[in-house]
C-alpha cells in the first residue's frame, strides 16, 4: 500500500563554517507511518541531515517541508531521540519524560499522567523516581524514547539511538521499538551506521555517500514483519538480501 509523503527534503546543501561540505543536493520523500533509515559511513552527513529535518540546523541551501509546511525551526510535530540521551541530570525519570510537555506549559498533574503512561510503555514503570545517573545506558535511552512519545509528535527522529548501548540491549530495544511503533502509526526517521539494524527496522533505507553526503541508493527491503518473531525476520530471505545489497554498495566507500 502506497503511503503519503510526510517529510519532503528539497535540494538540501549544507556547508559548515570553514568550508566543510556535509551535504550536496539531497532530495527525498519520506512516507508517513513508515520507518526510514539514513545509513552510511561516518562523515556522510546523516546526522546533519536529521538535524536539518529537526529544524536544529538551518541548511545552506534547500528546503524541508513537513506535512505540507516549510520548516524554519523545531516544531511540535517532530520529536527527537538523541544519541547521547540528552537527559537532564538534575531531574528524575518522570520529570525528564514530561519535559517536552513542561516546556509547553501543561500543568504538572496532566503532564505527569501522560509521562507515566509512556514510562510504563517503555518498561520503566518502577524507575519513575530514579535519576539518569542511576540508570544503565539502555534504560536512559528508553527515557529518551518515552520523552519523544510523550509530546505525541507524528514524526520521531532518532539519531543513532542504540550506538552507546550494548548488543543484547540493542536487539531487545529494536524489537520493542518495532512492536511499539506498529501500534502507534508514527513516522520514524532513523540514523544508524549498522547495516543489520537498518535492514531489520526499516521500510526504506537511504544510503548516503560520504563527503559531501549525497543519496547513493534507496533500498526497500519489503520484509513481511506481521506476526513473525525477530528470529524469523532475521532469517527472512528479503532481510538477508537487503543486508547483502547494502554491503555491496557501502563497501565501495570504506
Amino acid at each position, binding site marked *: 500500500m502506497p503511503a503519503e509523503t510526510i517529510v519532503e527534503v528539497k535540494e538540501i546543501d549544507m556547508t559548515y563554517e570553514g568550508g566543510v561540505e556535509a551535504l550536496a543536493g539531497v532530495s527525498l520523500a519520506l512516507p508517513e507511518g513508515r520507518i526510514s533509515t539514513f545509513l552510511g559511513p561516518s562523515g556522510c552527513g546523516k546526522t546533519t541531515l536529521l*538535524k536539518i529535518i*529537526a*529544524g*536544529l540546523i538551518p541548511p545552506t541551501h534547500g528546503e524541508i517541508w513537513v506535512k505540507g509546511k516549510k520548516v524554519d*525551526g*523545531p*516544531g*511540535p510535530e*517532530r*520529536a*527527537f531521540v*538523541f544519541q*547521547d540521551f*540528552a537527559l*537532564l*541530570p*538534575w531531574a528524575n525519570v518522570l520529570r525528564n519524560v514530561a*519535559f*517536552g510537555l*513542561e*516546556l*509547553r506549559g501543561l500543568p504538572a498533574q496532566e503532564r505527569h499522567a501522560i509521562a507515566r503512561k509512556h514510562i510504563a510503555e517503555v518498561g520503566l514503570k518502577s524507575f519513575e523516581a530514579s*535519576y*539518569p*545517573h542511576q540508570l544503565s545506558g539502555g534504560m536512559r535511552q528508553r527515557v529518551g524514547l518515552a*520523552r519523544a512519545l510523550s*509530546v505525541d509528535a507524528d514524526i520521531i527522529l532518532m539519531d543513532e539511538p542504540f550506538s552507546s548501548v550494548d548488543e543484547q540491549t540493542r536487539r531487545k530495544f529494536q524489537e520493542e521499538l518495532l512492536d511499539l511503533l506498529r501500534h502507534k502509526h508514527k513516522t520514524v526517521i532513523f540514523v544508524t551506521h549498522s547495516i543489520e539494524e537498518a535492514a531489520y527496522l526499516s521500510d526504506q533505507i537511504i544510503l548516503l555517500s560520504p563527503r559531501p553526503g549525497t543519496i547513493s541508493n534507496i533500498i526497500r527491503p519489503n520484509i513481511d514483519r506481521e506476526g513473525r518473531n525477530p528470529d524469523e525476520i532475521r532469517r527472512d530471505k528479503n532481510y538477508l538480501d537487503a543486508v547483502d545489497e547494502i554491503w555491496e554498495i557501502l563497501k565501495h566507500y570504506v
Partner: protein
Amino acid sequence: MTLLGRRIPIFFSLVVWFIVWEIIGRAKLSTIVPPFSSVVIAGFTIVPTEKFSKAVMISLRSFAVGMAFALLVGIPLGVLMARVASLGKVLGMWVNIFVSAPISALVPILMAVIGIGESTVVITVFLFAVFVILLDTQVGIKQADRSLVEMARCFGARRYQLYTKVLILCALPEILAGVRLSVIRGVKGVVIGQLLIAILGVGELFELYSQHFLMEEFWALVIIVFMFAFALSEAVALLERRVEYYASSR
C-alpha cells in the same frame, strides 16, 4: 587523619595550634600575642557590648548589600558574557584583570570620590566579590551541555525557558563555586573597606583595639571574623554538595 595508628578528628590540628598559642602567650614572648585563653575570655566580654553589636550590624549591612549587588550583577552578566560572544570578548579582558588585581588599592580612590561612609564599603564589597562570580558563571554557561540545549530547542523551549530550565541549572555547580569564593572575598572587602575608612563597623573596632593595644580584644575580633567567613563559605559549600551528584554525572 591518623596518628600512631589511631584516627583523630580534623579539628585536632586546631587544638594543637591553640595549645601552642597558649604556651607562647604565657611565656610572654611578645606583647602582641596574649594567651589564647584570655583571647577567648575577651571575646565573651566584647560580644554582649552595645558597641560590638552596633559595629556588627553596620558591617553585616554593608556586606549584605554589597554581596546582593555582586550576585545580581555578576550572575546575569556572566550568563550574557557566555552567550553573547562579542560581549564576552570586550568584557572578558577587564574581568580577568580585575579578578587578579589588588582591589584594596582602589579603596582610597573610592573614598576620595564617594566619600567616607557606608556606600564606599558597599562598593568595596561589590568589587571584591563580583569578578569571581562573573568569571565562574561565564565558564559554567560556556561549558553547558550542548546536546541538552539542542534537546530543549527540539522540544520547543522558548528563549527564557532555555535559560531557566536548562542553562542556569547546567551551570549551577560553577555558579555556586563562584558564589562561595565571592562570599569569602566579600568578607575581606568589608573588613578592608572599614579598616581603611576606620570610623565604621568592625573596622572601627579593629582600629580602636590596635591603637589602644587591646590585643586580647583584637585577636578575639579576628577570630570572630574568621569564623563568620568560614561559616558562610561552608553554608554555600553545603548547597554545592547538594548539586554535586549531578555535576559529576554530567
